[in-house]
């Protein structure tokens, strides 16, 4: 128990979380703390590139095996399964249109790479290692959730209407989703890291390793500001049930991931990180895909939930909780 508290307070007092809080609270108080869009996008690419590369190098060092395939499969299953649970839960907890429930469900099945990064930093502080290939697992978890959500959204409709509504709408959707830049940079950097190996890492470590935590702070300042803005403008669309969903759903996703992680025999850190993936909700790839595929779904609901409620919760108390759970369970 003491360990858990120590973990939690170490996390809460880490510069990264404090900068997130600065952005979040400063924005609620009325300040403008966002970074310019061009820079925010670049920092996000930097994070993808850095963790992808480091993951690839880790795999190059430890070798490829069947466990990677297992983990990738587990990730895909989680990404497809969690939306179903989320959809059901939303049906009980909130009065939303079917399409909005499906859209929210997609976000929770998919993942947030920044939460993943924050989780891996917390593990490092806690002295726990993890499997390098989990980066690749994160990448494969981006898309299955979207497909399941589209199915959920359309299932209730008369076939003819569904076909008409989505007529031409799915054109290009799948390539858009599969080729969205964050996935390509993540996977591409993973492969490059695998090819370049530790020698390649040594070359570019002063760019992707040493300043990484500091860059994360700057990025989380921005993310905090964007989350705070989301809460400011989206709060009126939230009901108590929805807020509760945004706080509880991550733990459900995490428990599913816990089971999966134990089943495929991940290390304690690996289990914790898979839980972080299960718990986190997308706010880059999925919203863009849904604007194309489910334009009737309201961003003011899904973005406020994933970015304004779940992301801050995961970053502050979720991550230490998942680590503690993983430690207890792995035990």
């Amino acid at each position, binding site marked *: 128990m003491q360990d858990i508290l120590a973990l939690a307070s170490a996390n809460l007092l880490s510069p990264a979380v404090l900068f997130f809080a600065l952005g979040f609270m400063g924005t609620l108080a009325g300040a403008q703390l*966002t970074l310019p*869009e061009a820079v925010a*996008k670049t920092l996000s690419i930097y994070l993808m590139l850095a963790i992808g590369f480091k993951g690839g190098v880790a795999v190059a060092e430890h070798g490829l095996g069947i466990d990677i395939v297992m983990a990738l499969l587990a990730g895909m299953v989680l990404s497809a399964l969690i939306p179903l649970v989320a959809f059901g839960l939303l049906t009980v907890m909130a009065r939303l249109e079917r399409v909005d429930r499906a859209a929210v469900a997609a976000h929770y099945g998919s993942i947030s790479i920044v939460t993943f990064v924050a989780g891996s930093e917390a593990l490092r502080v806690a002295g726990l290692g993890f499997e390098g290939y989990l980066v690749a697992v994160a990448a494969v978890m981006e898309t299955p959730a979207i497909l399941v959500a589209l199915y959920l959204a359309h299932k209730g409709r008369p076939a003819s209407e569904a076909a008409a509504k989505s007529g031409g709408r799915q*054109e290009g959707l799948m390539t858009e989703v599969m080729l969205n830049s964050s996935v390509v940079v993540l996977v591409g950097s993973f492969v490059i890291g695998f090819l370049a190996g530790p020698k390649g890492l040594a070359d570019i470590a002063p760019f992707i390793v040493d300043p990484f935590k500091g860059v994360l702070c700057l990025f989380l300042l921005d993310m905090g500001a964007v989350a705070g803005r989301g809460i400011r403008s989206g709060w009126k669309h939230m009901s108590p049930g929805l807020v509760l969903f945004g706080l509880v759903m991550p733990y459900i996703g995490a428990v599913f991931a816990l089971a999966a992680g134990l089943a495929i025999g991940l290390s304690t850190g690996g289990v914790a990180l898979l839980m972080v993936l299960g718990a986190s909700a997308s706010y880059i790839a999925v919203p*863009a895909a849904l*604007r*194309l595929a489910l334009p009737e779904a309201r*961003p003011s609901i899904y973005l406020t939930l994933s970015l304004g409620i779940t992301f801050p919760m995961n970053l502050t108390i979720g991550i230490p909780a998942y680590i503690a759970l993983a430690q207890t369970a792995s035990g």
Partner: protein
Amino acid sequence: MHTFAKKQIQIICERPILKRVQRHLTEAGVKGFTVFPALSGSGSEGEWDREGMVGDAGQMVMVLVVLDPEDLDRVLADIFDVVSPQMGVITISNVEVVRPDRF
């Protein structure tokens, strides 16, 4: 200078559907268009601001198309189908140009 009457369509639409809009414009045979980034805005779905954003969702762009009045109806019908289920605004206005054959 002698000028000629043309039409200008101004499409304010979401960035994620920009590719789709461009494809439809090209297929509809327009001779050109230009896209401008918007900074922020407000509409029936509330406010948005692209500052600090990482993803493309929640950003609007403006597509300007100068075209011949003859083509207006066809292009407009096509684009309207694409844009109307989404957030956004389409307006049409009269403009004059110097080189009529280019549009």
